[in-house]
């Protein structure tokens, strides 16, 4: 019982097929002259199916008015006599040149004399021999620069070769011309070869072509994001202009308002926090409180807190409260005196500013990192020298660590700070004191948590491609970083120290 029974097919078809399939198998035997191993690699011969009807071919060839005749080809210089079939109309063979000879274009490469070279063509990066070689190859391969670059003995990029060729040609042209106007219309003079633009174009093109799907998606996201940001900024600008804070009366919370303006003015460019509002909000809140004949201090505080965070979203308010808790501060003061409430309100405002800044920084870093992703792909078109340099850079960040003041600093961080790469070799059996920084820079021997600050800074510099100049850390900056240090990490106080092991001044 099988599928055939179910389908009602006759059982005897199978043996028939087997019989039939045997003869072709025989014909697929290994042809003579090919070793068994090589033949095995081919996986058998592909079935040959004539794409054109053989009868049709035969008939075409055997047409009456075509003849096998000799012909001469002007593109050839060797007078080789070849034959071909030509159509003969009224028994008159075609006269004239071979029809394909016209495609044998050759570039007229300018020839220069030794005198001319001495006079116009000397170049620091090119010797005369190299230039001669280049022009020989140019003539031989009809300016097919890819081929020329392949054959060229010393390693030069296509762009360099082109640049040399065109600048030489141009120089000769202008030198030989009796007046500058005579050659001004010549394409070589009119549109000179721009090597830097060409290099950049190729780099950009290869960058574009080597993008992965993921990067493309990211780019689209970034562009959309940038659009959102600019739109939000525009909206904020528009909304800020008519919003001249109407502060007139003085109240118990007046001093706070001034601080608010100072705190929120800086991040006003952030689209997330339309920061112009809290000022007026607190003003109106204070005013509405004074309308009451009597109120409780806690009521006033809640009122003001609400006014301050009116512009923030629910999530931000939650985060503010989380931060308060993390700082060990009661959400509602236990002893809500005037001073305590004022301080509490200030603290909340500062936390709002802090969260605001954090958000900004995240945005900025996201913007930066998306650029890094695209710029860090190794472009296929770049010459090997450059990729070698990149490899060097990467190699310097070997995961080794160094003990400074009881704290571990990773090798790469130290390398960044010292402004020169620390390879495995340079670090062997040594201590920090051996390294003298190129720049007078300070760093904090810190645990991972704080070392990310300089690291981030460094990463940013690197991705924007400017020099690896490291910003010197002032003692106050060190102090700041020390504050951020989580207390539980190490019992030992973290001492800011010079990279060369010296004491911080």
């Amino acid at each position, binding site marked *: 019982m099988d599928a055939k029974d179910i389908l009602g097919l006759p059982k005897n078809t199978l043996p028939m097929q087997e019989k039939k399939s045997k003869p072709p198998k025989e014909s697929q035997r290994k042809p003579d002259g090919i070793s068994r191993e090589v033949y095995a690699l081919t996986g058998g011969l592909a079935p040959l199916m004539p794409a054109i009807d053989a009868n049709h071919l035969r008939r075409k060839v055997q047409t009456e008015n075509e003849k096998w005749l000799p012909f001469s080809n002007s593109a050839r210089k060797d007078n080789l006599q070849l034959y071909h079939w030509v159509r003969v109309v009224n028994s008159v063979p075609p006269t004239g040149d071979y029809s394909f000879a016209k495609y044998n274009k050759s570039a007229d490469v300018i020839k220069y004399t030794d005198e001319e070279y001495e006079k116009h063509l000397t170049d620091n990066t090119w010797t005369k021999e190299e230039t001669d070689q280049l022009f020989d190859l140019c003539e031989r391969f009809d300016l097919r620069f890819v081929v020329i670059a392949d054959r060229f003995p010393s390693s030069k990029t296509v762009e360099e070769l082109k640049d040399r060729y065109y600048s030489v040609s141009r120089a000769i042209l202008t030198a030989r011309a009796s007046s500058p106007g005579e050659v001004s219309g010549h394409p070589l003079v009119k549109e000179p070869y721009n090597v830097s633009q060409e290099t950049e174009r190729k780099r950009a093109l290869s960058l574009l072509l080597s993008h992965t799907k993921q990067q493309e998606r990211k780019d689209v996201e970034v562009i959309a994001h940038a659009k959102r940001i600019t739109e939000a900024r525009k909206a904020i600008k528009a909304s800020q202009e008519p919003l001249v804070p109407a502060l007139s009366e003085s109240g118990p919370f007046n001093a706070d308002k001034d601080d608010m303006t100072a705190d929120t003015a800086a991040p006003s460019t952030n689209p997330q926090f339309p920061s112009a509002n809290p000022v007026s909000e607190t003003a109106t809140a204070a005013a509405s409180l004074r309308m009451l004949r*009597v109120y409780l201090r806690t*009521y006033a505080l809640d009122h003001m807190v609400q006014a301050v965070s009116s512009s923030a979203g629910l999530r931000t308010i939650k985060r503010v409260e989380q931060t308060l808790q993390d*700082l060990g501060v009661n959400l509602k003061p236990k002893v809500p005196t005037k001073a305590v409430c004022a301080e509490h309100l200030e603290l909340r405002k500062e936390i709002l500013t802090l969260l605001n800044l954090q958000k900004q920084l995240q945005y900025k870093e996201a913007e930066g990192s998306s650029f890094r992703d695209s710029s860090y792909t190794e472009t296929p078109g770049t010459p090997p020298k450059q990729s070698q340099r990149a490899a060097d850079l990467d190699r310097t960040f070997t995961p080794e660590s160094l003990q400074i003041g009881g704290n571990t600093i990773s090798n790469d961080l130290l390398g960044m700070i010292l402004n020169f790469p620390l390879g495995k070799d340079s670090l062997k059996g040594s201590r920090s004191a051996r390294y003298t920084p190129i720049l007078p820079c300070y760093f904090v021997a810190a645990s991972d948590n704080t070392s990310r600050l300089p690291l981030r800074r460094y990463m940013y510099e690197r991705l924007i491609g400017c020099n690896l100049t490291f910003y010197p850390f002032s003692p106050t900056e060190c102090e700041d*970083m020390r504050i951020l240090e989580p207390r539980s990490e190490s019992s030992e106080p973290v001492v800011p120290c010079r990279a060369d092991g010296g004491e911080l001044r």
Partner: protein
Amino acid sequence: MAEIVEIDGQLERNTNESTLIPQRIKITRASDDGDKKILQKRLRDVEICVPIVYGTIAFWLGRKASETQSHRWTVYVRGATNEDIGVVIKRVVFQLHPSFENPVRVVESPPFELSECGWGEFEIAISLFFHNDVCDKQLDLYHHLKLYAEDESGPQSTKRPVVVETYNEIVFPDPSESFYARIQKHPAVIVPRLPIMLNLPTEDPNEKKGDTKDNPLSQWFINFSEADELLKLAAARQQVQAHIINLRRQLSVIDGLPLQSWKPGSNY
């Protein structure tokens, strides 16, 4: 009781619900005719502040405890430093659970306290009424009566009561001149120095003996000190400010170089 419910109803209409906060402190506006009656000169930009503490102290009755009366508790409003707040507050109305007999209890003179026996915890509404020259509006406080200690630190004791107190400050913005003059020297009140030398006659606080200094319960009163709170806040602010400075610098570093990042070919 019906009276209080009415006040509550009025309250809902007058105060904007959206500005109310979980602590459920409501400020009522009395009828408008009060404003017209007392046409007094007001001191602008002056704020008189009365620090108060309100709460409950509950004693377990131990062997004497019955099923319906297991605790004896006292609810009170006192000056934070146990000074006499009778100079400001005329009358305090405590609204107890409706299961009590006469649940609305009025205390007409200091000390503003009320003792009861009971077995259950509930929320007590405390309405403060002020003297005529102080304010014609009432102020409502809410306190949850606590009979049982939250942490099971030990067995209930007849010696150690369960004390729950809340510190707050009553603020009178733009007080009347007469009020200011009357309480200017009073220890229960925090009065700012007048910016302009106003020649206000000072009245000696007439000692009515309404303070809670020698209250039998005073040994259980909590001493509220703002110093701890201020210290904690100062430390927190310092930490946050340091963080802000740091973030600003990071931002300025990034901001300082954004144009360069897009210059073609500069990364080689």
